[in-house]
């Protein structure tokens, strides 16, 4: 090698060697001379550590957590959040297409066509061609507004400063895989379109028509995050079980990812923790709930289509498991509701005067209090010596029966539903005992189910006013209370009252069996607590009378229903279903109509009659003068529902279908939405 060549080679290698020396020097300057951070104007110094370098490219996406799932007592889903996407796109007009107005318009039209084609990629879509046209027009308008195409001249170059980039919301609640893939494909194919898929949720209520009032529904509104001025969309329960705080979604989870030089994301890791929705295990039995809704609707609308029968104003049907107080079904029906979501949930919100349905409750209380001799015979004929002595002596109050009754024992009074006989019994109780009666059965007390907007009802405000003379109380309130007047209840309160008749004052209704929070099971405590109970012989005597109410005895108030069910199903209900009918006429105020005469038909039934396991209460209210009795109108749906309980239980045992175990925990039906994977 010549000397000149050697010099050139040395110089070249020397320059190459200077590169690492420069880098090493620069590194030393940054890490040592700059003391590990870079000063930045208007911002905090940038720390020169490895994480800082990573963070230059790292991003995080917030993944919202779903609202809690509601399941029935056998694990069937009643409400669940389903994952959907809110899709946005950043559209940047390519340089070539952005040169002239014509090419820009053509490009916008092409992109609109692409998006419209993606939106109709659902293979199950029925009217694809029409839907495609609608979507294309909508996207053309949307993109036209975003790029202000109306401001563009008809021809020529695109004016300087005219927007060439637009961020538009393509669609919300996208959950069909083929549509998602088609939209993603647009982003992959067109470098000028950058797609963003934001995870959101859609609340789904399977069997919606059967669960409007009880499960409830949700609304999504803008809310301010507490402690900040940040506003964000939040979904909250509006009514029913959906209002429970346990269903509120947890804080969003975050997932890191990296962005490459083209802004494309790539994988760093999965979510720190997969969002797990809480699960509320309700006491509802979905199949019985469906049956309750069907029975109530059928009865309420029976004959109305032919115009021969007037429909009631509202109806309620409640089914309870007696051993636990679990609410199995609660159906609500309205004549004037425009939409079920706007209607009151009648089992807890609609008050009515119960009428004769309370007589077994009164008799059990009087018997327990030692104020009633079950073998005593009362002359229930109007104008009889008993009547004159017990009722006539109080003043001008007149008590009538629907049919003539003569000498009856308490058993007979209940079977015949004699108001005069019930008044004799009610007049045996002191004012304090009537007050205790209301408390024992929970009339006027909240149900404690945490269902919003519950009506409390109870006795009239002045009934227990100490300033009212005792004689006046006996003449008015005591007699009225005896056959269910001067007080208002809801169907659910009446169910609780009968539950207490059989199980004592500590018994309460329950609507939640337990919660799964973060996958961990928390069983709900048994409803109610300790409290006084009636003696077994008291309950037995009243139950026997209720058994005879549903019999072929023509004086029994359940006679018509007994005959009807015998004809319809071939079942002799005597000794199978025990119950009590009630019919009451009241005057209530209705907005826009003033005081209106209404009639309440109600029925409470327990089944099996010998050892009751299920309890049903049905109430229907009419606001006209049509003939309308508890025995013939309210009893059939309640009895059919009670019979269905046993049919369903037999079927489930025969087919070994999943049912709840002793502690109330069930697995969410496998593979179903909301499946938490518990127990696998």
């Amino acid at each position, binding site marked *: 090698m010549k000397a000149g060549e050697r010099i050139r080679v040395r110089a070249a*290698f020397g320059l190459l060697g200077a590169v690492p020396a420069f880098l090493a020097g620069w590194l030393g300057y940054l890490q040592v001379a700059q003391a590990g951070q870079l000063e930045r104007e208007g911002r905090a110094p940038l720390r020169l550590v490895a994480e800082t370098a990573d963070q230059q490219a790292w991003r995080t996406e917030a993944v919202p957590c779903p609202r809690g799932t509601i399941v029935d007592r056998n694990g069937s889903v009643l409400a*669940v959040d389903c994952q959907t*996407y809110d899709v946005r796109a950043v559209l940047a007009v390519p340089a070539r297409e952005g040169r002239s107005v014509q090419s820009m318009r053509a490009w916008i039209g092409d992109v609109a066509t692409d998006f419209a084609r993606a939106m109709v990629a659902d293979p199950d879509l029925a009217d694809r061609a029409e839907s495609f046209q609608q979507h294309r027009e909508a996207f053309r308008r949307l993109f036209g507004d975003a790029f202000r195409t109306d401001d563009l001249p008809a021809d020529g170059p695109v004016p300087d400063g005219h927007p060439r980039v637009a961020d538009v919301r393509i669609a919300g609640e996208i*959950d069909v895989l083929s549509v998602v893939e088609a939209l993603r494909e647009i982003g992959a194919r067109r470098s000028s379109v950058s797609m963003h898929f934001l995870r959101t949720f859609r609340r789904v209520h399977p069997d919606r028509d059967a669960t409007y009032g009880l499960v409830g529904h949700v609304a999504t509104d803008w809310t301010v995050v507490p402690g900040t001025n940040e506003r964000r969309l939040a979904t909250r329960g509006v009514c029913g079980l959906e209002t429970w705080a346990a269903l509120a979604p947890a804080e969003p989870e975050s997932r890191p990812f990296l962005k490459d030089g083209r802004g494309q994301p*790539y*994988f760093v890791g999965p979510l720190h923790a997969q969002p797990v929705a809480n699960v509320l295990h309700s006491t509802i039995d979905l199949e019985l709930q469906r049956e309750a809704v069907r029975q109530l609707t059928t009865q309420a609308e029976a004959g109305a289509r032919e115009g021969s029968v007037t429909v009631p104003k509202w109806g309620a049907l409640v089914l309870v498991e007696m051993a636990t107080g679990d609410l199995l079904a609660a159906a609500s029906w309205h004549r004037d509701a425009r939409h079920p979501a706007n209607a009151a949930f009648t089992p807890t919100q609609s008050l009515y005067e119960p009428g004769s349905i309370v007589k077994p409750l009164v008799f059990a209380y009087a018997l327990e209090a030692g104020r009633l001799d079950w073998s005593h015979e009362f002359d229930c004929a109007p104008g009889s010596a008993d009547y004159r002595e017990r009722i006539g002596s109080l003043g001008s109050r007149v008590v009538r029966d629907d049919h003539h009754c003569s000498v009856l024992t308490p058993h007979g009074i209940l079977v015949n539903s004699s108001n005069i006989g019930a008044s004799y019994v009610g007049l045996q109780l002191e004012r304090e005992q009537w007050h205790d009666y209301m408390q024992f059965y929970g009339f006027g007390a909240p149900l404690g189910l945490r269902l919003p907007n519950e009506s409390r009802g109870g006795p009239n405000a002045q009934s227990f006013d100490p300033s009212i003379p005792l004689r006046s109380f006996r003449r008015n309130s005591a007699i009225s209370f005896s056959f269910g007047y001067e007080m208002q209840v809801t169907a659910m309160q009446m169910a609780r009252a009968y539950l207490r008749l059989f199980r004592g004052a500590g018994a309460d209704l329950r609507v939640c069996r337990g919660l799964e929070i973060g996958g961990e099971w928390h069983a709900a405590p048994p409803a109610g607590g300790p409290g006084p109970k009636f003696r077994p012989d008291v309950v037995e005597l009243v139950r026997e009378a209720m058994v005879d109410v549903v019999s072929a005895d023509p004086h029994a108030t359940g006679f018509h229903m007994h005959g009807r069910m015998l004809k319809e199903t071939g079942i002799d209900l005597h000794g199978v279903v025990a119950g009590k009918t009630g019919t009451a006429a009241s005057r209530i105020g209705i907005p826009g109509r003033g005081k209106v005469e209404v009639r309440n038909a109600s029925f409470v039934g327990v089944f099996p009659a010998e050892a009751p396991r299920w309890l049903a209460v049905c109430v229907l209210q009419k606001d006209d003068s049509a003939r309308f009795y508890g025995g013939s109108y309210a009893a059939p749906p309640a009895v059919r529902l009670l019979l269905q309980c046993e049919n369903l239980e037999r079927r489930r045992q025969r087919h070994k279908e999943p049912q709840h175990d002793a502690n109330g925990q069930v697995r969410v039906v496998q593979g179903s939405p909301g499946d938490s994977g518990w127990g696998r």
Partner: protein
Amino acid sequence: MRWMLAGLLFALAVALAIGTVAIRAGNAALRHDVERTYRDIQDRMGELERLGLERAETATPEYLAAAMWAQLRAEQQRRLERLQ
């Protein structure tokens, strides 16, 4: 010889640098694939939820009864047409 070694070392350094960049690029490409797969799985989980609900809706007694009646009516119509 010294220059030969220096040249080889330099070539090695360049090869290492290129190799490192290639591995990192391959790594990034794989991460892109993983990201796509991850999103595909997420999309399919949503689809599974949706289909599960749809199937559950079509398995209610009311729906099945309606479907059976529709099938029976169609069968009745078919037989009537065959008779005529």
